[in-house]
């Protein structure tokens, strides 16, 4: 399944980059995340509760950050498994400074297997879009918070 | 652990009181608690219709309901329709037209069609199509089932039992 899109954040590229690399913020990016630990510079592990239609399950997973070119781009790889299935994906994130803020362009591919795949197909697309939208909102909020704190 | 719940259900005119888990499916309740195995389970996904029973007179998929939802309600299953010695006209029609082969989907069809014919025996092509669309059969190709419904309509309109 292909995932792609873009979002404009009202903040500098450095701020957005810092946020994306902050596990606490990342956890907000993925709604349903119950735990996200940074194991090293480029590796995270955690747990997330996913719901796709009638399928609800917790997954344990890992995220790897590769090909970092701060604050411009990086490649994210993720994989996880749980009762309801498994997933594996990779994508790139590009940040470009523009007049009204920072443009984030993301694109990637995610493969889903197990119950999720065999019964949840028709809902996966919709659910992933919803999750991403929520994630972006979460990032927006986190960015605002940081700006507010910085202002104090 | 699931707490047990008491339910009182009237099935085919008889009142049953049972203590069950809340998550017990109505189909499993009917088949295994009440030992009425004429209702069959084909998919547990609500698509095939084999598990169709009458719930307060309405055809419903018993695999999509919980037994606790039937508390205080009336259920009719295929066992109520007729006996081997005394078939309901709808059942007779099914036999006469060879509208069943393996018989697994049959009770679902009977319980789906019965309320339609009890309401009217004057069925249009569209009515007939509507009456049958919700049940899957892999054996018959449906043609004889269509014949059975038409034959049953004739039998029931000329004063057959309802």
């Amino acid at each position: 399944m292909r995932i792609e899109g873009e979002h404009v954040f009202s903040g500098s590229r450095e701020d957005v980059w810092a946020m994306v690399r902050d596990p606490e913020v990342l956890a907000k990016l993925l709604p349903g995340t119950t735990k996200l630990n940074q194991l090293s510079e480029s590796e995270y592990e955690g747990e997330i509760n996913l719901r796709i239609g009638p399928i609800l399950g917790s997954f344990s997973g890992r995220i790897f950050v590769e090909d970092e070119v701060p604050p411009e781009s990086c490649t994210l790889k993720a994989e996880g498994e749980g009762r309801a299935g498994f997933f594996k994906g990779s994508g790139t994130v590009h940040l470009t400074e523009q007049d009204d803020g920072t443009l984030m362009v993301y694109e990637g591919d995610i493969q889903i297997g197990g119950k999720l795949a065999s019964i949840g197909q028709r809902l996966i697309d919709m659910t992933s879009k919803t999750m991403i939208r929520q994630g972006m909102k979460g990032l927006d909020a986190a960015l605002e918070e940081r700006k507010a704190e910085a202002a104090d | 652990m699931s707490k047990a719940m008491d339910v009182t259900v009237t099935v085919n005119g008889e009142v049953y009181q049972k203590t069950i888990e809340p998550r017990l499916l109505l189909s499993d309740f009917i088949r295994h608690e009440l030992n009425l195995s004429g209702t069959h389970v084909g998919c547990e996904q609500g698509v095939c219709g084999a598990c169709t029973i009458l719930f307060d007179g309405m055809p419903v998929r018993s695999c999509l309901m919980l037994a606790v939802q039937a508390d205080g309600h009336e259920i009719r299953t295929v066992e109520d329709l007729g006996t081997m010695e005394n078939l309901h006209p709808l059942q007779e029609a099914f036999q006469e037209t060879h509208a069943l082969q393996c018989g697994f989907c049959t009770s679902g069809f009977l319980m789906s069609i019965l309320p339609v014919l009890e309401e009217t025996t004057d069925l249009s092509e569209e009515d007939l199509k509507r009456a049958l669309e919700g049940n899957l059969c892999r054996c018959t190709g449906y043609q004889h089932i269509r014949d059975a419904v038409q034959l049953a309509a004739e039998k029931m309109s000329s004063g057959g039992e309802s």
Partner: protein
Amino acid sequence: MMAKLIGKRITRNEDPRLLTGQALFVDDVELPGMLHAAFLRSEYAHARLKGIDLSAALERPGVVAAFTAEDMGDDWSPGPPLVIPPPTIEDVEFYTRTQVPLVKDKVRHAGEPLAIVIAESRYIAEDALDDIVVDLEPLDVVTNIERALDPDSPLVHDDLESNIAAHLVQEKGDYAAIREGADKVIKRRIVIERGAAGAMENRGIVASWDIKQQQLTVWDTTQSPIPIRNGLASMFGLSEYQVRVIAPFVGGAFGPKIMMFYPEEVLLTWSTLKMGSPIKWIEDRRENFYATTQERGQVHEVELALTSDGRILGLRDDFLHDTGAYDPYGLTIPLNTQCHVLGPYEIPNFSSDLKVVFTNKTLTTPVRGAGRPQGVYVIERMLDIAARELGIDRVEIRKRNYLPNDVFPYDNVIIDQAFESFIIDSGDYLPAMEKALEMISYEKFTQEEQPKLREEGRRVGIGVVSFIETTGVGPYEGARVTIESSGKISVATGVGTQGQGHFTSFAQIVAERLGVDVRDVHLVTGDTAQFHWGTGTFASRGAVVAANAVNAAALIVRGKVLELASEALETPEEELEIEDGVVRVAKIPTRYISLGDLAQRSNPLRGAVEPGTEPGLEGTAYFGPKYGATAFGTHAMIVEVDPETMIVEIKRYIIVEDCGTILNPLIVEGQLHGGVALGIGNSFYEKLVFDDNGQLLNASFADYLIPTAAEIPTIEIAHQVTPSPLNPLGSKGVGEAGAIPVPALFAQAVENALDVEGLEILESPLSPQRLFELFHGEEKDA
């Protein structure tokens, strides 16, 4: 003597039970102390098993036991091969790799079982599956049969050098030579995808080991209880007499239930023997999509060489057959394909290179048609294309190539699934075609109606295809007929019944031979305690092999009846007749003795039974045909395609069917209707969609579309009867006939309807989306 009952439209004996919910299916079996099993299945299609931890599952209240492959110890072993490759073909490369009871080293298809949990209820057992911790290391997956042959493809079986499960070449004449002199050579690639059988009843097993009686009883939704009983006895060191396998009423089978020694059959038996409790396992629908076998996947590179007037000089069909993760069923399906590519046509030169390929998908074993639909699809499509390219009418080109009536039995030389050279016993193809054309008003439609409708912009099309169907293969079946002292007749035979009406069609034969009412003949099928010699219900053979055994047994009893009655009535046998349950002197009808009285007489409590005679009025007989009888027919249909939605509406559907002597036309019609419905599903609505990770994306009826009544038209049937010389009844099978030609017919009719220059349909199944792409000339993604 005129048949009174055989061939009559008699309603079924078994219906009252089925209609009133009084018929026993496997899930209806309830035994005291019965436990329930659930299987943990791999989600990954290809993965190495590093470890399984059952401890949490075992701690769950209500869980009684849980086992993995390791727990099975020496009892663990891959299943026996069910069909060996034919010893009659030279140079067959074949690698036997059969399914395992529980995964030991690696997972080879999504849904392969990793562990079994046994608990007090199915609900608890399924809960406990989530407690099990499995360490699986995912491996690269191979799903496409062509890519599976790439040198760098992941290997389904590591001990093999490639994913080739089998390779053989079958030839007749010299295709390469004849090709040189051909006026026309047509070459095409045809791709056919998998479908599921989709019986309404999922599989199920109840296995019960009674320690005190040292008796194992297994209820199983199987099409072949006798081989299961023999195999389980052998596997577990029991005497065959200690094992009883019962196939009660089975809710449809269509092939996958003939697969034997499924992991679940082995595990349930092993577990009950170990635990001493009855255990039940009922498959759920999603499991069925993974754990029950499927069929149809093939890729053909085919070439047809013809003269300029459309006579076939030769055919070459090189193809790949997808066997999934294992190959217990040998070459049965692709051999059927090879034979059916020849069709009812005279094809003097033929060459076919077949490769069977392993993939990380559910294993393939026969589904109604069993490789025949693919063969028919190939030849019928090629003839359609040849007709177009040569400017010959499609009906005409078929007529020019039909085998003439004086060639039968016709030896096609190549080896078929029964290991013999493929001989067609009898055929009469031209009248079947003519009749179909007449019924569908072919000329009127193509000359008048279609052009007019086309002018209005309507996409209407017509299709006509011919086909053959091999049926009635051996080795044999048996039956026992007994007249009881009540005068009722009991019959037992080893085949099982999954809706085919054996309780009636076989009863008709017995009732006719013994002069009784059909309703007074009580039949038992599928219970090894009642009859334990035979193979099973498959390959459209019940009405041929089992029915002829029933017939032979009934005739033995008839002989005994007449002999004994002759003595009792002091009248020569020739002057006696049997009717209405009595034997009477034809000219003096008041002088008679009832069958019941005769039965009592034959089994005296006093007096002597002469040496060399048998007590009772009972006969057992076996029948094994020399080779399979070949049925045939022509199907025709008229369709209309909505150019915006690409939905295909079938306006008319015609079948002209020749299955030899018909036992019960009502039942034959039912089989044809059901077969066509499955065929329509195969053609347009049903496709098992696997992604590159071997994940089945539509494992539910919501997404795998079995046709409803709205999609299946009314079917008009005409029968032709060309009796088979291979058996006394003259019957041929018909169980799969409805399904076999449908995809070929669909493709032809829809192509005709779309009426786009250069449009060729070379794949199955189709779909509205795919038709849209073809219609607008878009290429499918590779």
